[in-house]
């Protein structure tokens, strides 16, 4: 397929956290609000006059400062973020809203307060306690935490947090989500007109750039994909869903696709599932409650303990396999991640042994070190999927 018009531009935007659009928005007076985790609703940070910035640490291959503060036995994502913070990469932020979703993340976010690496005035850091269930008590707790530690702090920055402002944020969320979802749906085609790598780029820029500035590019890209002519023959050997933790490096998706796979579904922390679902405001619900409920309901974090949420993780993957006609699932966990270490093993067992879906488990660093080993694993998995298809249908490459 012909390259998308903005592929290179999107790649450039993802080269650094304080990218061209972020700088432009800040220069124009918008307030940048940072966050790391889906437990912090992006929608609450995209109020009129503010924009959300999900923190990444692109090209961070060494983390000596992160290692010093958090030890080298800790989550490499958190170490990389702290490293970049100390280097000054996030000096455009007015706040970091953290979530005690996992210890590593929480400790890293605490350092934003303890060692004050972000040189911006004002700069505030708060950390919510994130619920582990999805029942009413958990929702009330979640709402109380978000109200006190996010909305109240945003208001202190002089931002309108009224219902009208929240409704505008919901509208913005739904517009971005509708575009991303439609783009993502092209991955369901037998011969998809968007690659997993391209989609990963598009999804990421929607998370790290101010929506008002990235939306024109997203709209144009959607139009381009609608009219895109696919390759005459699919250039992949198997369709896979990629699941896991903080995968914010599109090169990882590219690596998987170079091994013969086509990533047709993304169910990981920076992915579109969850994050790009339509947000409804139900009758008798305030916009704030709707946002909190939506994010609690759609959250697929591996830390949830209630039965419905545990089942939801594998149910969603199984549904995606069917919807996107995937041949298998690749489940990633980052080194030193407690939650995904467990969930990777368990989900893999459930999917492969109980639901008959081939899975490949891999563990990786934050950066793409060990790419050679990963390539070998992916090639073997893709080959396995291909052989399985040959055995069942007699057909090799996807048709």
């Amino acid at each position, binding site marked *: 397929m012909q390259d998308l018009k903005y592929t290179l531009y999107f790649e450039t935007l993802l080269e650094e956290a304080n990218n061209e659009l972020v700088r432009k928005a800040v220069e124009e007076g918008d307030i940048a609000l940072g966050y790391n985790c889906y437990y912090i609703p992006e929608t609450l940070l995209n109020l009129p006059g503010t924009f959300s910035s999900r923190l990444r640490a692109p090209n961070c291959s060494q983390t000596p400062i992160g290692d010093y503060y958090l030890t080298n*036995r800790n989550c490499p994502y958190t170490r990389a973020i702290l490293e970049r913070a100390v280097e000054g990469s996030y000096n455009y932020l007015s706040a970091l809203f953290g979530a005690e979703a996992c*210890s590593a993340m929480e*400790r890293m976010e605490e350092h934003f307060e303890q060692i004050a690496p972000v040189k911006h005035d004002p700069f505030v850091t708060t950390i919510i*306690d994130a619920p582990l269930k999805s029942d009413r008590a958990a929702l009330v707790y979640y709402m109380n935490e978000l109200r006190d530690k996010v909305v109240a702090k945003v208001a202190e920055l002089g931002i309108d947090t009224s219902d009208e402002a929240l409704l505008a944020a919901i509208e913005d969320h739904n517009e971005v989500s509708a575009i991303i979802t439609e783009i993502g749906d092209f991955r369901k085609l037998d011969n998809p007109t968007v690659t997993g790598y391209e989609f990963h780029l598009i999804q990421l820029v929607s998370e790290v750039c101010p929506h008002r500035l990235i939306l024109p590019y997203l709209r144009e890209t959607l139009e381009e994909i609608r009219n895109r002519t696919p390759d005459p023959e699919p250039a992949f050997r198997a369709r896979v869903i990629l699941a896991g933790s903080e995968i914010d490096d599109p090169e990882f998706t590219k690596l998987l696709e170079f091994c013969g796979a086509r990533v047709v579904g993304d169910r990981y922390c920076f992915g579109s599932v969850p994050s790009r679902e339509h947000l409804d405001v139900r009758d008798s619900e305030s916009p704030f409650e709707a946002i909190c409920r939506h994010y609690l309901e759609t959250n697929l974090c591996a830390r949830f*303990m209630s039965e419905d949420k545990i089942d939801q993780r594998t149910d969603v993957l199984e549904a995606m396999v069917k919807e996107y006609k995937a041949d298998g699932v690749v489940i990633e966990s980052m080194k030193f991640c407690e939650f995904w270490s467990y969930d990777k093993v368990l989900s893999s067992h459930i999917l492969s042994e109980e639901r008959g879906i081939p899975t490949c488990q891999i563990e990786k660093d934050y950066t793409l070190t060990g790419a050679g080993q990963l390539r070998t694993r992916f090639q073997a998995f893709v080959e396995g999927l291909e052989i399985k298809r040959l055995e069942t249908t007699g057909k090799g490459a996807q048709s």
Partner: protein
Amino acid sequence: MKERIISFIDDKLKQFDPVWLAENGKGGQRTRYRDDGSGIARYREWRGVEDTFQDYTAWLKNLGYMGAMVAKDPIKVMKGIWEYRWMGSFLASFAFVDRIYEGYRGRELDIANIHGNAIVRILTLRIGLILHNDKRLGGGEMTDKMIGLDETIPPLFTAGFPTLNAEPMQTMPEFVVCDVDQHLDPYYIDVAESYGLAPDVCSRCSAETGVAIDDAFPVFGKLVLSTNQPCNASEATSMFQRRRFHQKGIEDYPFVFAMQHNTKNGNEYSKEELRQAIQKIEEVYDVKYDWNALFEKAKNMNHQNQIELEKWEIFATPYSPLSGINESLYKLVEWALVNGHDEYFNEIDDKVIGIMRQAVRDKYVPYKGKTRHRAFLWGPSAMYYTDFPTWAQNCWGIDIVLNMDSTMGHNMIDTEDPEQALEDLAKFSEKGVMRHHAVGGWDNVNAVWEWANRLNCDMVICNDNVACKGMNGVHALLEEQAQQLGFHFVFLPHDLEDCRTIPRKEIRKAINDYMSIVMGEEPLDATLVDFDDAEAW
């Protein structure tokens, strides 16, 4: 006349007393051990006539408790040993008790044996009860009236169900037994890792997962309450465990607590969770919560906590004959396992606080006045090296005045108003094992200096569980704080329940290096500086 005879015998047999040997440069604690790393002593520690007699009496009492457990239901106990790998490890209990109170004399030994007997008593009672009612071994009259609790859920609230019996699921197969035998949990860890679990997760939870995969949990009750206490790995391992429980026909209910337990929002949430957990038990067992029954046991807990607060005052003086593992192990069992349910522990507390008060009145100096440093032990300790504080005292004169886990929930619980009791219980329960100061924000961890100051400590030893992501995340901040505040500060690396990653010898080396290189001190007992106990229980 009696004193003269005792003094004569003590003088004649002093060459068997390791403390005397160390004092006189003729040997020490390791002299009586075999040199093969097995940790097997050639003869029992000679402590002088009176202390040896007292210690031997306590040993016999422990033997009596164990005999009583077997005599009560010999077939189930034998079946249990046959069925469960972990049961075999409890046979090392005698060596364990001897090891943790090594070098103790006088009032330290008096309290140690009172505590040791209480611990063995309660453990044998609970093991006997579990085996007797284990469905796998045939079941018993209480089988369907038992509630399985995650071991880190404080069980006090279950006192409101006097017709039911709540037992911790993991304590016997994985937790306490690791104190007794360091070689058991690596087996379960290997089971979990061979199933695919990453080796860098917390070894305690990895071992629990291994127990679940190996199908080595006892089977009882209709409901298990899992929890997020104390941290991430606990939440994660419950996913595996619940599948095993479901397979056995036991329902799982996640009873979670606010991670940030010092906030108003968090307390309210924990209170609501507690209310729901009670409702769940009522539904599953078709019983009604009895607040008066709770209040009765809450009074026990309040009594224990009142004594605990007084103990802390005495810990701040140089006259406390209670410290080290003697303090922390008893506290752990009394708080996490008994939690007000057993009046016998009130009697023990009364007896011990009496000895401590007298020690203060007498200006009694423990450990023969050999203490050089008073240390606060921070962070969760290595389960496979329970006798570390004893070693630190005997080798370097470091008195572990208090352990982080001994600061667990100590607020009083209302014994009249159910709503207030619920709120108090929620606050109390949130501050559980390995949790009160290890999670919930930097301020909780940073409280160490306040504790150390309050107890007149000059040293902080910080357990450095290599797989604990939360405590790893405050490494540099703690070190910088120690430097600023002028405390002697040592990180003590360990892998919680996997003795292979960082063996006991390496843990000791961290202290040896600090004491010899940084502090420039000589050991009290040279035989304890470098020895091999890799193969010991």
